[in-house]
């Protein structure tokens, strides 16, 4: 029960195109790790492999001493690995509350599933609170705006109490204030969970990240604290643009 995420020699091929090549990547239990890299670097692909969506051509992914490669998606979730998606997907026909409740209920036994929901579970209520969606609890999720969906998705993830969270661009499309709120939330979560965040927002990174891993063309470009990474000329070259500082300012 180490709680570490260990990726070794991971290679992903798409019809001859190599999205990840021989990637090694480790996240220790309890860490809050940021994952950045140019568009197409393979960040989402990495998350996809960890969560069972994409089958790698080779390599291994271990979490908590379980090999994840070859397991089906829901099994991996049951091992305590949760994720959000770059384009948020919520169940449009269910209400916000039902979305959260469903996410929270996956460990219930069949009998529990066959019963009606009575009241609101504590975890669900908390998630409604945290995400600021309490007022919208009984609306179908289909009516949410882009940003609201993002929140709901994070909320759903929280109710699942995963030990490892993988967030793919959680603050994209959020206003600055909301980014800050999300950041605070992340910090809090990271106290008890292992979190990997894929993000492009350097400002956000600067404020909330400690360790950052940079991917480029399916390989590890560099790893370190925010300052180190930002100062790295290779990172500036491929990712930030020569005057990266300016953008993030």
């Amino acid at each position, binding site marked *: 029960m180490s709680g570490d995420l260990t990726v070794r020699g991971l290679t992903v091929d798409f019809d001859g195109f190599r999205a990840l090549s021989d990637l090694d990547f480790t996240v220790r239990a309890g860490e809050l790790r940021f994952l950045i890299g140019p568009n197409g670097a393979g960040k*989402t692909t990495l998350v*996809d492999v960890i969560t069972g969506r994409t089958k790698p051509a080779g390599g291994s992914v271990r979490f908590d001493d379980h090999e994840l490669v070859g397991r089906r998606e829901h099994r991996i979730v049951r091992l305590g690995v949760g994720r959000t*998606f770059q*384009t948020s*997907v919520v169940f449009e026909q269910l209400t916000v509350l039902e979305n959260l409740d469903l996410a929270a209920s996956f460990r219930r036994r069949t009998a529990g599933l066959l019963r009606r929901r009575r009241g609101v579970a504590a975890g669900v209520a908390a998630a409604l609170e945290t995400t600021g969606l309490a007022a919208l609890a009984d609306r179908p999720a289909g009516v949410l705006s882009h940003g609201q969906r993002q929140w709901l998705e994070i909320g759903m993830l929280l109710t699942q109490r995963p030990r490892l969270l993988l967030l793919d661009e959680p603050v994209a499309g959020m206003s600055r204030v909301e980014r800050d709120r999300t950041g605070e939330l992340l910090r809090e979560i990271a106290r008890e969970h292992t979190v990997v965040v894929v993000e492009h927002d350097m400002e956000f990174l600067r404020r909330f990240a400690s360790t950052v891993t940079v991917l480029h063309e399916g390989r590890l470009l560099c790893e370190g604290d925010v300052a180190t990474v930002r100062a790295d000329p290779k990172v500036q070259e491929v990712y930030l643009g020569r005057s990266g500082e300016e953008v993030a300012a």
Partner: protein
Amino acid sequence: MAVLNQLVIGASMAAVLLLVALGLTFTFGQMGVINMAHGEFIMAGAYTTYLVQPVAGTLAVPAALVVAFVVAGLMGLLLERLAIRRFYGRPLDTLLLTFGVSLILQQLARDIFGAPNVQVTAPGWLTGGVDLAGVRLPYNRIFILLVAVGCVVAIGLYLTRTGHGSRMRAVMQNRQLAAVSGVATGRVDQTTFFLGSGLAGVAGVALTLIGPVGPNLGTYYIVDAFLIVVAGGLGQLRGAVLAALALGILNSYVEFWTDASLAKVVVFMVIVAFLQVRPQGLFVLRTRALS
């Protein structure tokens, strides 16, 4: 020898299957409309041949190919305008809607042409056949094969080589985005449906050479037609061709060794088994997006 014959027979069965399914690569494959009235458009093509016959004489069949394409196409166009256009993105609803349309069209044919089959005879130049190493390949089968190949080539070019073809696919994948890209989505829908339905009409003409021309004609082919499209992979022309070929040959051999009833059952089971290996049909269009 007889066993070898079956290969040729399988291929010619495949041509028929392909022809009845081709229109569906548009209406079902591209537009996502489960058009149960497709069979009745085939029927309309067959009746067109019947009507053209006294006028066009020995050239009835080629003339009918053109007329039937237009007639069935227009029927499709009308259906699209009056009803289908409200149903894009809801394939299962179109199924029920068009089932109703198919009942109406069948009854209409019964009332217009009478319940019994009508007579369409192949012109002289389509009777007879060539002998290939002891196998006789009837001219009308060759003709059907040629029509099928011609349609496949034309569709293939249309889909991949014309702007209209890719716009049609664009509309199906993201209607709204197509509209904001300047595509007149309604117009594209109409054209697509016209083409798909028109192809059903063409199939109907071909079928008059080998089968009955009556109000029930469409019902005999509709299930097979959809199966071909599914086995081939939705909207995949190559897939439909290969699936038709595979199922035609499989069917011909199973029927040869057992009987026609069992052949149909076996073909179904093979398709289910096949979908274990290739769940989305022979040729898959995947994307990374979540459904």
